[in-house]
């Protein structure tokens, strides 16, 4: 935009959050959050429902003001220079800018007008985005008839009309089926490789792993861990082998039999008759060994599988409690578990 041309330069990180607190009445949504995202990097903000992810995004996109602390986007203060922040950001995710009575092209066209692009630029930009997000065939149909995946892609396209320097995606794939989710990942990856600074929130470790350079784990308004996906996984203990015993009497014996396969103790859920064991990176070899041991003892199992660590596992490792202990995140973490690959 015109205002950015003469804007002063900023040598710090593209997104900087320092000691931000935010409360809604009695509820402490953020309790002293620090974040820094280098230009062109992707930060994944990972946590269950109610962790404060959306609050952080709302503060950074000038929708709400922090109670304490400061937040800067490309050096611009989100409170004092809110208008200047809005010039350079894009937002998509849980909210949607799509108006369902209008076609995909009309939605893009109106967005272009609101960013004061001239007619020629608007047309070109709309066509380019429709092409890039595989919406060209549906461009002139009302968006009411779009699938969930198409709507998310269009919504992302809407947030890119102005070529924002910093993009915020609040749970960009929540509610999508697995195929659309992977499609969305590809789109986001392409975007990121073009150098956009991105902050995305997610409940899925796998998603953060796929897209983010660095992951920050938040729980109840606090940052509880930060690092690359690999670092976090190492702390979690890597892959998890899970199975249920058919005869509940075999539960203790089964747990005993597999405990030698890992330095971690197996977790036993007596009620469900399930055993879970963290096995580091050696998922498949440990799986074979598990099958052999249980088989030699004559223990019959159900649903034997190796899966990647879920948000639950991360939370268990970092906080000692599951993600469910967070504010009503039960449903979220159960959904999160389904993302794990079954082998």
């Amino acid at each position, binding site marked *: 935009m015109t205002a950015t041309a003469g*804007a002063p330069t900023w040598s*710090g990180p593209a997104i900087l959050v320092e000691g931000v607190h935010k409360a809604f009445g009695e509820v402490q949504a953020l309790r002293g959050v620090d974040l820094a995202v280098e230009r062109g990097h992707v930060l994944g903000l990972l946590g269950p429902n109610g962790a404060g992810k959306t609050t952080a995004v709302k503060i950074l996109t000038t929708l709400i003001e922090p109670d304490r602390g400061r937040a800067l986007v490309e050096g611009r203060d989100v409170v004092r220079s809110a208008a200047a922040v809005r010039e350079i950001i894009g*937002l998509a995710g849980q909210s949607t800018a799509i108006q369902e009575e209008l076609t995909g092209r009309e939605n893009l066209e109106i967005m272009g007008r609101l960013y004061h692009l001239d007619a020629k630029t608007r047309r070109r930009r709309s066509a380019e985005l429709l092409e890039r997000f595989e919406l060209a065939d549906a461009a002139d149909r009302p968006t009411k008839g779009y699938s969930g995946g198409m709507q998310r892609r269009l919504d992302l396209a809407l947030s890119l009309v102005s070529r924002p320097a910093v993009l915020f995606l609040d749970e960009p794939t929540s509610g999508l089926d697995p195929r659309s989710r992977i499609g969305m990942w590809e789109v986001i990856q392409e975007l990121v490789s073009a150098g956009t600074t991105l902050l995305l929130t997610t409940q899925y470790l796998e998603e953060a792993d796929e897209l983010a350079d660095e992951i920050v784990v938040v729980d109840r308004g606090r940052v509880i861990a930060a690092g690359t996906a690999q670092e976090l996984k190492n702390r979690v203990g890597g892959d998890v082998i899970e199975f249920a015993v058919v005869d509940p009497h075999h539960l203790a014996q089964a747990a005993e039999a597999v405990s030698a396969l890992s330095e971690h103790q197996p977790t036993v859920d007596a009620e469900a008759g399930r055993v879970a064991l963290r096995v580091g990176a050696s998922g498949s070899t440990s799986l074979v060994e598990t099958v052999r041991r249980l088989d030699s003892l004559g223990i019959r199992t159900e649903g034997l599988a190796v899966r990647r660590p879920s948000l639950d596992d991360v939370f268990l490792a970092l906080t000692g409690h599951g993600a469910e202990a967070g504010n009503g995140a039960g449903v979220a973490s159960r959904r999160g578990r389904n993302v794990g690959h079954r082998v």
Partner: protein
Amino acid sequence: MSATFETLVAVSVPRPPVLGRVRSGLADVATLTKRELLIWLRNPSYIFFTFIQPVMFVLLFRYVFGGAIPVKVPGGYVSFLMPGIVAQTAAFASFGTAIALARQIQKGVIDRFRAMPMARSAVLLGRLAADTVRLVVTVLIIVGVGYAVGFRFQNGVVPAVLMVLLAVGFGVVICTVSGFVGLTIKDEESVSSFGLVWLFPLTFVSSAFVPVLSMPGWLQAFAKNQPVTTVIDEMRSLALGGPLGLHAWQSALWLAGIIAVFVPLAVRAYRRAS
């Protein structure tokens, strides 16, 4: 983390000059007005409320109830009815305002607009401008239908135009109330099921369809003194001839009072609706 950056001073970006801001603000209002009108034209339920329902009301009251309602105005019941039904239609047109705002909040459209470099007032002003256009069209259609079933303006062209303008102004004022309701309830379903129940007593317990004097005494006290009756009586005087002064003042005061209360409330609800 904070230790590394706390010495960094935030950059300050000068705001563009006022004139430029006003100009781009007006462009945004124009864009959003166009957007709302396009949405309106594409939405069957909005079209129903705007055209089909009022036309049904005209026919229903003109031919079904009308014969049983004695009135003492030149031209008979259809002359009495039309100003009332025009005002009622204008009031109910605000349904679209409430529903559209509730839906846009619910879906997050408003949040997205607020995160864009656009005057925050543009969304509400665009809405209001689109509603005004909508009301003009609606009122003219109803007057047209009225002409088809025997209604005639009996007081000359200028008062007739003034009646249409008063109806539109009244509708816009009711839109600010409905807008506040929509922004406060924030749920499309709730708004469409009970968000506008208050419009029923206001429009029916008024002089819109029957002379107030035909109501029981206790109801007359309300019917006589509420804003819808005042506005309709003024519209009737404009359309059919009659004393203009008293009702004009009362109408102006009522409308100004509603604006003074509900515009700030609506703006506040919009600011908080994140």
